[in-house]
Structure formats: structure tokens, C-alpha cells
């Protein structure tokens, strides 16, 4: 199949949003294909998380469209985006603090659980088998991130780096086609960042999903991303391979000032 004929997993067409008088994001065009790892970078306040929020149904774009495998998604509710196959993590970690590590991951399986209230009340075979299956799946996901021995810890008690990993594990539980990671390496030291890079590569190889990454840590971005898109003040200023972006004058100006 020719490159041009493949349907992108995630696509945006002239995506934009205006808050009152402020054009936060405008004319954002993106195509991500299955298995790709794309980076989205830009100075603080450029509109990266706003883009994420539009890609996950938190904000409704005022112009343009978000498409998943060709289906238009904008206008739907967040959980419908997740059901369609878009999952995300948050810039400020949003875990379920008063639930155990294992339950945090199990909670994300909810949409795929088919048993009803009657089955839960009478503890039918369907119920017991489903519960067993998702407990096992949740444990497998925790193992990827080496969290399996902390499964009964309260999520709030995990060290910071592991909380970030738990958030990614929880997102993986939704069985998504595209994973949006919002500054996954924020607050991590170089060792933890290396570890995270390895995790991201493992996830990509193992699950065959597409990943869109917002990051400020350039070592992570340059090493892991196949393609990078740079935005500033809501507009795309550059797009291309990591080497090209590193040399791009406009990008350097945006980060360092002219």
C-alpha cells in the first residue's frame, strides 16, 4: 500500500480553538500513522496541552476536525473518545489517590466489562471470570513498569516516578490505538528519564500503537521521536525529523528568543 493511501490513525484537519478573543490554537494539521512515535514541542504556553485536550474531548474545537481512523470525533464526550481508542496521561499526575495501584489500572478496564448489575449482585460465572481476567491483565500491565510488587499500595504513597508510570499503565488498560503522553518525564532525573524511554519503546513494540508525546526534555524527544512538530502561540512553526528541527532557526528563536 502506498504511503499516501494509508489512513492515519489520528488526524486533525485545520484544528483550532478560540477562547473568547484569544486564538489559543489555529490551523493545526497532524497525521499520525499506526506505530509512529511523534513529538509535540514548543515553549510553555504554546498550546500543546490545549491540543491534547481537543484530541481527547476535554475541549470542543471551534474550528477543524479530529479524526480517528477516518471517523470524526470532535463534539463527543471524553469517555467516547477513549472508547474510540484515544488515551492520555496528564501533565499534573491525576491518579485515583484513594484506590490501590491495582485498582487504578482495573478502573480503566470498566468500559470493556460487559457484565451487568444482576451478574455483580449474584456473583455469576460471567462476573467471576471477567474479574479474574482483568485482574490478570492489570497485573501484566503493572509488570511492564515493575510495579507488580506494589499492587496493594495506595496510589498516593508511590514515589513520584512510579506514579507517572502507573498513569501510563492505566492509560494502556483502555486498549487504545493512540496514546497521548503529556510531559511524562516532568520532574524526573536522568536515570528515571532513561528508564522511561525504555518503557516507551517497549510499549510501542509490544502494543503496536501510535504515540504522541509532549515533552520539554530534549534528550528524550530527540532520542525517541521519529518526527517532531513544533508549535508556538498556537501555530505550527516547524515539522520534520529530529535532526532538522534541532537546526531550525525559527525553533531555536522560539525557545531562546531572538
Amino acid at each position: 500500500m502506498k504511503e499516501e493511501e494509508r489512513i492515519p490513525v489520528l488526524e486533525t484537519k485545520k484544528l483550532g480553538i478560540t477562547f473568547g478573543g484569544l486564538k489559543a490554537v489555529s490551523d493545526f494539521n497532524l497525521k499520525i500513522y499506526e506505530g509512529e512515535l511523534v513529538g509535540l514541542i514548543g515553549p510553555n504556553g504554546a498550546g500543546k496541552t490545549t491540543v491534547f485536550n481537543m484530541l481527547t474531548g476535554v475541549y470542543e474545537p471551534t474550528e477543524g476536525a479530529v479524526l480517528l481512523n477516518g471517523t470524526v470525533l470532535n463534539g463527543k464526550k471524553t469517555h467516547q473518545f477513549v472508547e474510540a481508542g484515544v488515551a492520555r496521561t496528564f501533565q499534573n499526575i491525576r491518579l485515583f489517590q484513594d484506590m490501590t495501584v491495582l485498582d487504578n489500572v482495573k478502573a480503566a478496564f470498566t468500559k470493556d466489562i460487559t457484565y451487568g448489575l444482576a451478574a455483580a449482585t449474584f456473583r455469576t460465572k460471567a462476573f467471576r471470570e471477567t474479574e479474574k481476567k482483568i485482574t490478570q491483565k492489570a497485573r501484566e500491565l503493572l509488570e511492564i513498569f515493575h510495579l507488580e510488587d506494589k499492587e496493594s499500595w495506595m496510589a498516593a504513597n508511590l514515589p513520584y516516578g512510579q506514579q507517572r508510570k502507573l498513569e501510563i499503565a492505566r492509560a494502556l488498560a483502555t486498549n487504545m490505538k493512540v496514546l497521548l503522553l503529556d510531559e511524562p518525564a516532568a520532574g524526573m532525573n536522568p536515570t528515571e528519564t532513561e528508564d522511561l524511554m525504555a518503557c516507551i519503546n517497549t510499549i510501542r513494540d509490544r502494543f503496536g500503537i501510535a504515540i504522541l508525546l509532549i515533552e520539554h526534555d530534549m534528550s528524550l524527544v530527540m532520542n525517541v521521536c521519529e518526527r517532531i512538530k513544533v508549535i508556538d502561540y498556537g501555530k505550527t512553526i516547524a515539522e520534520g525529523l529530529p535532526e532538522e528541527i534541532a537546526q531550525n532557526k525559527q525553533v531555536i528563536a522560539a525557545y531562546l528568543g531572538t
Partner: protein
Amino acid sequence: MTARGYLVNTAVTAALFLILCILCASPVGGNGFFKLVLVPSLWQCCYLVLLSASLNLILGFLGQLSLGHCGFMAVGAYTAALLSLGLQRAGVYEEKSGIVFTLILFVCILAAGLLAAGIGFLVGIPALRLKGDYLAIITLGFGMIIVNIINNLPFAGQNGLEQGSASASLYANGLGFGTKTKVDYLWVSVLITIVCVTMMFMFVRSKYGRAIKAIRDDEIAASASGINTSHYKVMTFTYSAFFAGVAGALYACTNQTLSTSSFAFTNGGILNSTFVVVMVVLGGMGSLTGSIVAAIIMFFVNYQIKNGAWVKALPAALQSVFTYPMLVYAIVLVVIIVFRPRGIFGTYEFSLIHFREDIRKWKTERAREKAERAGT
């Protein structure tokens, strides 16, 4: 929970239940203290347990403040009372005994729960679009609106079911048990309470429990994990209202008359939503065990305030405080929030097979905290 856990729980519960039934059927059932104090107390404990456990689903597990719970109870109470009255007038049964009446009793209780659930659904859909204080206000409003509507229905309301009114009292007709009937049918109340509490446990320990706890902890993250928050909120609200309705039906059995003034906020009674909130907070938001224990404690406190000999021995100034029981409960609520917001049990759930292990863990935890404080 393991199969062994279920078996142990069922066996112990069944054994205790059987002992209770035997006591009621035996000559003990005729004993003065038993039938005049213990049995009515157990009836009251039953519906208080149901009220507090069901509100905990919304308040503790879902994390939403609903102040209209007693509105659903009122719906349940009147549904059961009117249905039984209607059936009696239609000639389906005569006496409050026998197989037919027992069946009718179950049907009335079920109908009470279902209608309350229906009202809960209708209230939940608009109300649950709001959060926090706004939800509290709107549920408070709905609770009062519901009671007022019942008040103004021609066949119910203030005069509808009162003694001496045109519809005749409940005491002789319909529900509204006398002393002996209460002893004879205590098993129904206890059985229904056990079944309902079990249903709530099953609800919490399933995808539903996980989903609503996720919504409580972080609604945005819950949406981002694929949970349809509106669906689970409305569903939990409806389910909780069902049990409140059942509690109402049980309440309707315990009194000679049924009046909407018992559900009002100001008459010093305990059938208002604030009292239920106190029970839930005292027991621990997020612990069904806590709700059960707190309901029994608060029942006891209320009993002492109303009937305690020691109250009458108090100086007049202090005694006047106790004529406003809700004042006492409001103070209790403030004290809990200030000194132990987690309540008695926090989020702990009692389990027969883990009990010894839990005690051991608690003791080590206490010793550790003591050592830390001594060290610093």
C-alpha cells in the same frame, strides 16, 4: 473474596438470623422487655442501617453530597402504606398474618423500593449535572419538594393516613404493625436488611465500585480512563434511592400512623437527611461496615435522648438542649469533622476471616505511630 470467605459469612449470618427467629417464636417473644423495647428497636435499627448504608454509596463511594435522601424514604413509606391499604380494601387479605399477608408485605416493600428508585432516577438526571455545593442545594430542595408533593396528594398527606382520618389509621388497616405483629414479622425486616446490605457490598466490590471511587477521586481522570461518569452517577443515585425506599417501607410498618411531618426538618425527629449524613460521616465515608455500626450507635444515642432516665435527671438548662435532638447531632457532626474526619472506620470493611489479621495490623500500626511520636 474467596469462596471460603463467602461460605463463612453466609454461615455465620444464617446462624445468627436463625437464633433471632427462634427467639421471636419462642416464649421469649412474649417477654415485656423483648417485645416492647428490643423488637421495635431492632426494627428501627434495620431501616436506619439501610438509610445510612445507601447514602454512603453516594456520599462515601461516589463522593457526591446528597441532602435529599429522606425524600426517597418518604416515597417508599407512602408507597408501601398505600399499596397495602389498597390491597386490604380490595379484599386481598384480612388479617396481618398468614402466607398471603407475608407475600403482600414483600410485594409492598419491593414496590416501595422500585418507585423510590424511579423518583431517584428522575431527580438524578438533572441534579447530577451539578457538583459540590450546588448538588447539595438541589438535592436538599428535591427532598423537601417530594415530601411536600406527598403532603398535598388527596389520598396521602397530612391527614390522609392519620388516626381518625377518613382513610382510617394504619394501625388497624394496611401496614402499621402492633406489638405482636412486629415480633412475628421481625424476621422480614432483618432478612431484607441483610439482603440489601449484601447487595450493596456486591455493588461496591465490582466494576461499579471501582468506577464510582474513580469518579470520586478524580472525575476528569475517570472520564479519561473511559468511564461514562454521567451513567455511573445516575445509576448509583437510583440504586441508592431504591434502598432508601425499602427503608421507608420498613418504617411504615413500625408506626400506627404515617405523617409527612415526621419527614420535616424542624420537628426534632430523626427522619431528616441531615441525620443520615451524620450517620454516614460518623461511620466513615467509604465503609459500609462503618455505616452499619454508626446507624446502631446513633439509634442508641437517639433512644437515650428521647427515653433516657439520666436526661430527666439533668438540670433544666441542659435538659432543654435535648429537646432539640438535631442540635445534638449537628454538634456531633462538627466534632467528627474536626477531630476525626475519616469517621470511626475510615474505609475499612469488616471481614470475618480477616478479622484477626486486621487486628494484628492495626496494633502494629498503632505501636509504630506511638514509637514515631516518642522518637520525635
